[in-house]
């Protein structure tokens, strides 16, 4: 597990939106999808997912419906709403700007200053 990184505060919401944007998922599925797309590099406490999910539903970024999972079990499936899609776009842009800024800041060499 030493290869896993702690999540930065606020980034969980972004990851959830991203995971759901690839197709409707239930909670456990979202967890698996995040693991998959981050190549198991991010550590998410399983239970902590749900408060975040409910918060996003309440903000109108996700909508949820009960359905049946691939394991033939009842599960609640989450989907992006239009607002959610818009938010994902904005947050992704914001994140990329921030990341490249930080990256370029961290890669600065003495001679460039």
């Amino acid at each position, binding site marked *: 597990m030493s290869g896993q990184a702690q999540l930065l505060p606020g980034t969980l919401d972004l990851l959830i939106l991203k995971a759901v944007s690839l197709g409707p998922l239930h*909670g*456990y599925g979202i967890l698996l999808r995040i693991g998959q797309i981050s190549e198991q590099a991010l550590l998410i406490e399983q239970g*902590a997912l*749900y*408060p975040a999910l409910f918060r996003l539903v*309440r903000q109108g970024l996700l909508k949820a419906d009960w359905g049946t999972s691939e394991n033939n079990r009842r599960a*609640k499936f989450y989907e992006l709403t239009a607002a959610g899609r818009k938010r994902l776009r904005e947050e992704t842009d914001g994140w990329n700007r921030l990341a490249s800024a930080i990256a370029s800041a961290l890669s600065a060499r003495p001679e460039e200053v």
Partner: protein
Amino acid sequence: MNFLAYLRSLAAKFFRRSEIENDIQDELRSHIQHRADDLERSGLNRTAAERRARIEFGGHVRFKEESREALGGNFLETLMLDVHFSLRVLRKSPGFTLTAVLTLALAIGANAVVFSVLNALILRPLDVPNPESLYTIEHRRNISLEFSYPDYLDLRDHNRSFDGLAAYNNSQAGLDTDGNPSRVFVDEVSGNYFDVFGIQPYLGRFIHASDEHGPNSAPYIVLNYAYWHSHFQAERGVIGRTVQLNKHPFTIIGVAPAGFHGPVLFFSQDLFVPIVNQEQLEGANSLNERGFPSLLMTIGHLKPGLTPQQAIGDLNSIGAYLEKTYPKTDAHMGFGLARPSLFGEFGGPPTRAFLTALMLLAGLILLAACANLGSLFAARAADRTRELALRLALGAGRSRILRALFTEALLISLMGGALGLWGGAVLLRRLSVWQPVAKYPVHMAVYPDGHVYAVALLLTLVSGFLFGAAPVRQVLRTDPYEIVKSGSIAKVGRRITVQDLLLVVQIAICAVLITSSMVAVRGYARSLDSNFGFEPRNAMLMDTDLAMAGYRGDRVPAMQKRMIETMQAIPGVTCVGLADLTPLNGSLDNSIVFTAETTDLRSSNAAGGVVMYKVSPGYFRAAGTVMLSGRDFTWHDDQNAPRVAVINQEFARRIFGSVASAIGRYFKSSDGTRIQVVGIAEQGKYQRIGEDPELAMFFSILQSPSGGTTLLVRSNRDPAQLAVAMRSKLRGLDSGLPFLIQTWKQGLGVALFGPRMATISLGVLGAMGAMLSITGIFGMAAYSVSKRLKELGIRMALGAQRREVLEAALGRAFRLLAFGSTAGLVLGILASRVLASIVYQATPRDPLVLAGVVLAMALLGLVATWVPAQRALLLDPMTLLREE
């Protein structure tokens, strides 16, 4: 989202709580199942897989709660959760909960009752239109509200300040509807009375100024609403009915609206009759006598835009005219304005002062209760340090923990408040129908209203926050890691803690209450023992007015003599006397006298104001009044004999210089008649038990006839039996005469009403203070013993003596008690100076009171520490040390 929609969603969430709850529950369970499926696929068996999945998931309850919060609308839900949790915590310590709730119930109840009375008597305006502009005219000189009828007419007709000036007087009469007359309380009102108040009749019509056409011209009755209900069964057909009032026919023309009972708050009448018919009601007509105050009160609305000051100027100019025109009768015609509801300046300021003081004391009780509960809460929080630290360590926010503690405090205060208010309301309902004085129609409408409920709720919430705040500092300073590591942090320091401070404050407050209640009770007891100038024990009073049965002229003294003789014939009766009024019975007949040498009989030349009684021969013996010198009246002191009087000690001293020189001397009554002093009676109390020595004179009732009749019957027989005998004898004399029989002690109820109420209320508050200090000290002592059980055990194991153990366990409690009591005693003595003005003979510089307070506090301390002390002494060090 607009506010309404928000509320709706909140309500929906609130009511669908379990649905949402289930939803969350299902989803989390589904997650764990899916995870377990995966784990099972990797080779675990199902049970192990589910277990593993649950562990991986983390704090199930915490995430559930966070999820619920994330769903929003959580204030109510969190509140419900907090309430739920607090109820569970409180249920776990029923003793604590019960003590706290009862303590608070008492304190809130006391405040609700006192505030309700304050509200009814002072804050709530009279229930008539525009009560704020309603004033009564008072005499500046002696704050009296009484006027003679001619003076009233002049004021009414010549003032430019009032929208009509009404007047009334009260009296009693015999009302005969079916041949069985009963005593009724009558307000004799001026014709414009109802129109000045601006009220409409409930039924029929009111009396109007146009009904007045000279003496006895308006034989009409308007019934009080409550009396119409109780005595006429609310029958609408009474309008137009003719009834006999003092044997004169009167017609019932209307019923006053519910709730209207004139301008004075704590009196109520049975019916209203025009004052122009005064002669039929009182047997004599004093409406033409400018020197005779036949009116109890004048009332009117100030014209809009006029200040009381302007109105007083206007009235005083009429006063100056009256002084000039009628120098004989109208001497001091300076006026002021006062509120009518408590008899103006006569009843207003003392009532206000007393109720304010009482409210203050009740507030102190509540404060003491809060200090008490505050220290209990602080102690509990200290006991729960481990639990709190654990919760903090597990990630609960401090704000959440504080919220839980406040919820507990508020729950307790709300329960206590509800209980206290309920108890208070029961008491107030009793008080509202209470008839403390048989002779007068006292009516105290002190029902709690919206204001009372609002104040009670406010006090409840404030006190909840007050004592809930006590442990806040403790919680904020809790360092979870330290505590979880090292166990509870019982520092046996000598530092003064919040709890100590609270306890001292509380004990001081309680000592103040106990001191003032002792001062009051002792003062009251002494005032009952003091010399009234008559002997109320073993005597019965029979009150009536012969005018009620239509007696007038020569028939009055003849009937009075027959009454005396009939009473004397009752076996066991030692002596009988008769007077128009008895001392300390509420009503007074005031007059002025002149020295024998005065020729210009204007009232400004009077030698003094005197209380006047008209008494029969034998009165002094029957009353138990000692004659200092001279003689009693005889049956020969009648209309044909020279006018004679018996005067009291103060009269003799002030007018004639001394008792010895007064016998045989002359003075002049208000109409100039020369009267010889034949006897001197001991000084007595006439109006209030706390009054300064007043001048009094007694005339022979044969020379100054009066229909007002009080029979004094002295006997050692049982009062109930005697009353039966008296009643049957009086019925035999005249079955149409209504009367009231009571013991003389009961008759003193009027004069003792104020002191008695003061003593009862202070006594109750004192008892509550005592109770609070017991629970406070007990709580503190029990807590300090339980905190130091281990230390005490070690000391005992090392051979400490009982005394040392006690000192270690309770020394601090006792020192705090001593400190608090001393402070309270000093404060109480200072506060009691205020009391001395209300309760006669109340002085805090009374060794008995001081000793009593010290003894009481010591006793309270002993009682309160008894159980904890026993617990400390009965410790078995071995068991204790083994357990730890």
